[in-house]
């Protein structure tokens, strides 16, 4: 394929149609009626052009669980979903708590070449919650880690959380907290409420998430540090974050596509495809999360793409693994839940799925505006088709999508990573 591409007539951020000339890895020109001059032409009439999406929260499973996903298959899935950068969570085997492991993951991402992989470093050694991991070493490594998280587990010890928040200030890092008070959620299987009472499943009370978020916002304010809240799932959490932001504190937050669409009534029938941490909550929570994303209280959509092999999901509920894949369905779900409901326009989508996540992750070359000079990380998206989701067609190695069988709108037509197409005409390159 050539080094330059002329994208004709795409609606930039859903706005007026314009042409984009991509050359040598950057956006060379933006305008109307641009000259092709040896570039490969892509007729983008009717397509929306967005900056390449940035995922703050993905599980690539390598090293350790390559049966579920590898860096290669995961980044292929990311590219198909329109992503040009993903943050790979640290709960691998071995845990990404040293420079060695994060560099390995970073390198695997570069070699695969489908999407930039930015490894997330664990906050504590072995994600055991007791001793800080070598955060500085990971920050200085080739992977240049800036986001640290024990995701999967909560940094529940208040002192450890305080120290972590303080420590990362030295290199402009951010702690991304998985807010789950461990004692209140021992053995929990689903959201605690009417449905859990009916189904006889131990419940996960909303307060287990909200109490930790409140504590961490206050801690971050006290020590003057940044805090990022992973996968917000309750109305109460949104309110607490809104309050914290109103005080000017440096708190950011993310929400998953599935928490914007699905609620706990789906757990009736005990199909573990709906088992996830944090759990699906009530319809009221879904509405509050949508509103929070719309008004910017929640800064980013993050997929929390969590692949699991079939045998870990085809069991009785209590024995099933928690998690849903989501890279390849993220944009369609956001279109359905936020754009088609009038809560967010495409410029807003660009903001929540690219600009802000890139800022939070401190990624220089990602989440840049679609203008001349920016790195050519672009995704072209067709909002018009409606397709029934069939996980068998996914690039991900795993199939645990809760949207299987649902009709979702939209389709990624092309993804460009620094001017090179990783997806062209809807297919991986």
């Amino acid at each position, binding site marked *: 394929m050539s080094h330059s591409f002329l994208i004709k007539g795409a609606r930039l951020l859903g706005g007026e149609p314009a042409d984009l000339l991509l050359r040598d890895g950057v956006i060379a020109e933006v305008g109307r009626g641009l000259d092709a001059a040896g570039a490969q032409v892509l007729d983008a009439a009717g397509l929306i052009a967005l900056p390449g999406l940035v995922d703050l929260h993905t599980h690539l499973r390598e090293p350790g669980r390559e049966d579920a996903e590898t860096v290669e298959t995961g980044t292929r899935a990311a590219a198909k979903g329109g992503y040009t950068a993903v943050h790979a969570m640290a709960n691998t085997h071995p845990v990404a708590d040293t420079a060695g492991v994060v560099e390995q993951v970073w390198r695997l991402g570069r070699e695969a070449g489908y999407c930039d992989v930015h490894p997330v470093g664990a906050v504590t050694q072995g994600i055991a919650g007791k001793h800080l991991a070598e955060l500085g070493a990971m920050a200085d490594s080739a992977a240049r880690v800036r986001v640290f998280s024990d995701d999967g587990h909560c940094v529940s010890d208040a002192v450890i959380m305080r120290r972590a928040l303080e420590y990362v200030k030295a290199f402009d890092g951010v702690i991304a907290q998985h807010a789950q008070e461990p004692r209140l959620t021992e053995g929990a299987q689903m959201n605690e409420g*009417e449905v859990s*009472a009916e189904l006889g*499943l131990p419940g996960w009370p909303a307060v287990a998430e909200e109490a930790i978020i409140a504590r961490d916002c206050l801690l971050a304010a006290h020590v003057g540090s940044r805090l990022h809240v992973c996968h917000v799932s309750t109305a109460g959490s949104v309110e607490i974050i809104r309050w914290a932001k109103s005080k000017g504190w440096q708190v950011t937050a993310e929400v998953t596509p599935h928490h914007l669409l699905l609620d706990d009534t789906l757990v009736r029938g005990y199909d573990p495809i709906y088992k996830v941490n944090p759990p699906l909550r009530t319809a009221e929570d879904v509405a509050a999360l949508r509103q929070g994303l719309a008004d910017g209280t929640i800064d980013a959509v993050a997929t929390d793409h969590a692949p699991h092999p079939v045998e870990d999901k085809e*069991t*009785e*509920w*209590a024995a099933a693994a928690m998690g849903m894949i989501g890279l390849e369905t993220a944009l369609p779900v956001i279109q359905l839940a936020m754009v088609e409901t009038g809560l967010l326009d495409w410029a807003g989508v660009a903001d929540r799925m690219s600009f802000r996540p890139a800022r939070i992750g401190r990624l220089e070359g990602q989440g840049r505006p679609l203008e001349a000079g920016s790195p050519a990380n672009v995704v072209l998206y067709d909002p018009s088709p409606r397709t029934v989701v069939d996980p068998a067609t996914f690039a991900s190695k795993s199939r645990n999508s809760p949207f299987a069988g649902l009709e979702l709108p939209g389709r990624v037509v092309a993804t460009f990573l620094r001017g090179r197409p990783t997806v062209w005409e809807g297919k991986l390159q």
Partner: protein
Amino acid sequence: MKRHLISAADLSRDDALLVLDTAEELAQIADRSIKKLPTLRGRTVVNLFFEDSTRTRISFEAAAKRLSADVINFSAKGSSVSKGESLKDTALTLEAMGADAVVIRHSAAGAPHRLATWVRGSVINAGDGTHEHPTQALLDAFTMRRRLGDLDGRRVTIVGDVLHSRVARSNVLLLNTLGAEVTLVAPPTLLPVAVDSWPCSVSYDLDAELPKSDVVMMLRVQRERMNAAYFPTVREYSRRYGLDAERVAKLPEHAIVMHPGPMNRGVEIAAEVADSPRSTVTEQVTNGVSARMAVLYLLLGGSEPAIGKEVSE
């Protein structure tokens, strides 16, 4: 189209009455010298018990055999399942054996639902974790009806660890379907957070409820719950929520005392109460066979089940 009995809510009022009326007729078998009917000859019923429960398993086995069905007992302890064979693989094995019905007891809520997606026969829930135990509710209702007559308007008080009780869940649903009024009595820690949405009343005061009750059903309370801070000591639990002779004296003349078993004598129920004529504990066991015979007959006796929840393929 197949039908299962997984939750007491799977039974409409007509279905429930049909089961009870059928059980009434089938109860006569127990008094005959030939305790057998040919009705389920050629049908295979598999008892798939992942949790130890000799009594329930024997009850289902007797019920199936009295209807001349072939019974295969599959106990998970010591079998390939305990060595890691999945529920799905076990289900596929049963399917290959041509089970017409699978009776499943499992420690995980929702296991019967999963099983139902892998087998073509009828699935009967014999207890799934803390979710439900519908045949227990049926035999309980059968017992109440035999002792007290029609259940419409009857006041049933269920006492104990409701939060962790599959017997309570099934009974609340079935008794409500049959028109009885249910009151749950427990310390607040042992009631689900959303219990207000259930079709029953709630009280923390056992003594206040006793004089109004036609039936008092005591649930088993595990001592280990004390260590998870559900109540401070067993002694305090017994004092506030245990049924002793003094409390029994507050019951109306006709009222009966029930317990699904096994009993913690001295914790939720005093030994003398358990052995008194008001107590239906032993007849509950006998009635269990009749009720389970009725369920098996109605699910397997005809060309298609006459009761139960429909599941699309």
